[in-house]
């Protein structure tokens, strides 16, 4: 479904991503792991079109989407959430998701129909699926951090993506919130059949949900494989996991 081929991103000569390779098949849950500064977020920014790559190809459903603007990438079926909360803070929770749904249905230039009565069911269904329906009318800026992170995912679902990219979905969350988010991701992948690509520092979470793990270091790919393959890989142990203790999670 998604095939990133030796992608490179250089910021004034600094190679943030240097020849990384990634493969995501339909229905997969793929985790990207690596130490801070390995280039995970930059890789996601390249895939979702926030940044144009310096070199390399990104194939999505047999089409090279490298360098497309982010709104075009989104319309191809790739949605993403962000590591740092990135929502419409003055809008209500409902309106946050509705923006994405309206955009998905190409209603952005409809100027005379009241938005209040449009895409209501679809939006509420999404809020229900992420568990924010009871907070639908709250101004999103007033939500707790954990809820805002979940809303992130809700907004990304508004576009009915085929591939959902989550950049550290549980960053800054309490253990309880992390568990809820983990279950949410399992539901999205299991019940809704979404393909998920995410990066995460919480190894417990990565090894419990991902069926493919890609390990990054210095902007490149060390290995991509099943959790077992990654766990037993010598290079990964040396470069990142640092010892057998952490690998055993």
């Amino acid at each position, binding site marked *: 479904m998604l095939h990133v081929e030796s992608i490179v991103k250089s910021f004034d000569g600094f190679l943030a991503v240097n020849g990384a390779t990634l493969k995501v098949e339909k229905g997969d849950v793929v985790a990207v792991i690596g130490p801070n500064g390995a280039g995970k977020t930059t890789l996601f920014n390249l895939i*979702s079109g*926030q940044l144009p790559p310096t070199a390399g190809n990104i194939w999505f459903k047999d089409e090279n989407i490298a360098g497309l*603007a*982010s*709104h075009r990438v*989104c*319309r191809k079926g790739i*949605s*993403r959430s*962000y590591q740092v909360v*990135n*929502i*419409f*803070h*003055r*809008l209500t929770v409902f*309106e*946050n998701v*509705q*923006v*994405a749904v*309206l*955009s*998905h249905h190409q*209603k*952005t*230039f*409809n*100027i*005379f*129909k*009241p*938005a*209040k*009565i*449009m895409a209501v069911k679809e939006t509420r269904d999404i809020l229900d699926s992420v568990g924010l329906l009871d907070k639908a009318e709250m*101004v999103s800026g007033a939500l707790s951090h954990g809820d805002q992170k979940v809303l992130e995912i809700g*907004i*990304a679902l*508004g*576009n009915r993506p085929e591939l959902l990219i989550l950049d550290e979905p549980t960053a800054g969350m309490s253990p309880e919130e992390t568990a809820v988010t983990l279950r949410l991701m399992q539901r999205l992948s299991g019940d809704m059949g979404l393909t998920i690509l995410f990066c995460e520092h919480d190894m417990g979470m990565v090894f419990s949900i991902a069926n493919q793990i890609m390990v990054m270091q210095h902007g490149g790919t060390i290995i991509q494989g099943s959790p077992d393959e990654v766990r037993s890989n010598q290079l990964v142990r040396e470069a990142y996991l640092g010892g057998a203790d952490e690998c055993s999670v």
Partner: protein
Amino acid sequence: MFNALFDVKTTITGMILLALLLLLPQFLPRFYVYLFALIFAIALLATSLNLVLGFGGMYQFHHAVFYGFGAYAFALFVTKSGLPLWIGYVIAPFCSAALGLALGLITVRLHQLYFGMLQISLGSLVWAITYRWYSFTGGDDGIHGIPLPDLVGSSTGAYYFNLIVAATCLLLTYMIVNSPFGRIFQGIRDNPERCQAVGVNVQKQQLTGQVLAAFFAGVAGTLFVTVEGSVFPDLMFWTLSLEILIMCLLGGWFIFLGPALGAAIIISLRTFAGIYTEYWTLILGIVLMLLIFFLPEGVLGLFLKKADPAAKREG
């Protein structure tokens, strides 16, 4: 569809207000009829700015140029074309919208402050041309004694015309703000990057907003001519843009009717304080300083907060 836009309370309040305004000229002296007619024009102008400022988050620093352009387009059409005068009312807003499109095509490529600065430069260029082109625009003298249709020739006629046109345009703007376009526009205001990431072509959206705002500013321009019967280059000078911006801040720029209220306050202040001192802007300056410190949500924002502590965000 109407029900989705207004609740019963708002509808009744609006109806009563409109009825009052319709009756007002029967009781008021002529000067006040004139003043109200002027306020209607400027209230529409401030609301049109707020469409892109408060609801679109665009740094629209030179909105007056679209207003003045509409006023000039109307004046020039009426004095030079020899065609029926009413056509001018239709054509002028489209001229403003066209200018909005032309300037917007260049400016929306930039963001925030850079957008605003470029708009000031390009707008000042339009002003300079108007100011210098004596043979066509009348230069710094402007155009006076513009013929108007008989219906709006009297001050009461102008009052009713301005009231009805401004009210209709406010209704349309309200619909736009609450439409999918408006909702996404507010999304762009809060977070343009995220909006782009959910598939919105942000620049195209901003350009459309720009054209719509320019259109309504153009309508306001024709309303000004209806009241004053003249145009002059000050109508597109950047200090006027600043004044409209202050109206939005004063009334409350996250509330739909805030800018209209701000316009009413500033026009009244200018008219009445202007009788006593030519330094009325000094009073404006003090009011503004107090505003920034004590009423960051504007006058209407304060009232709404008092009326409803749960604080509604939109009027």
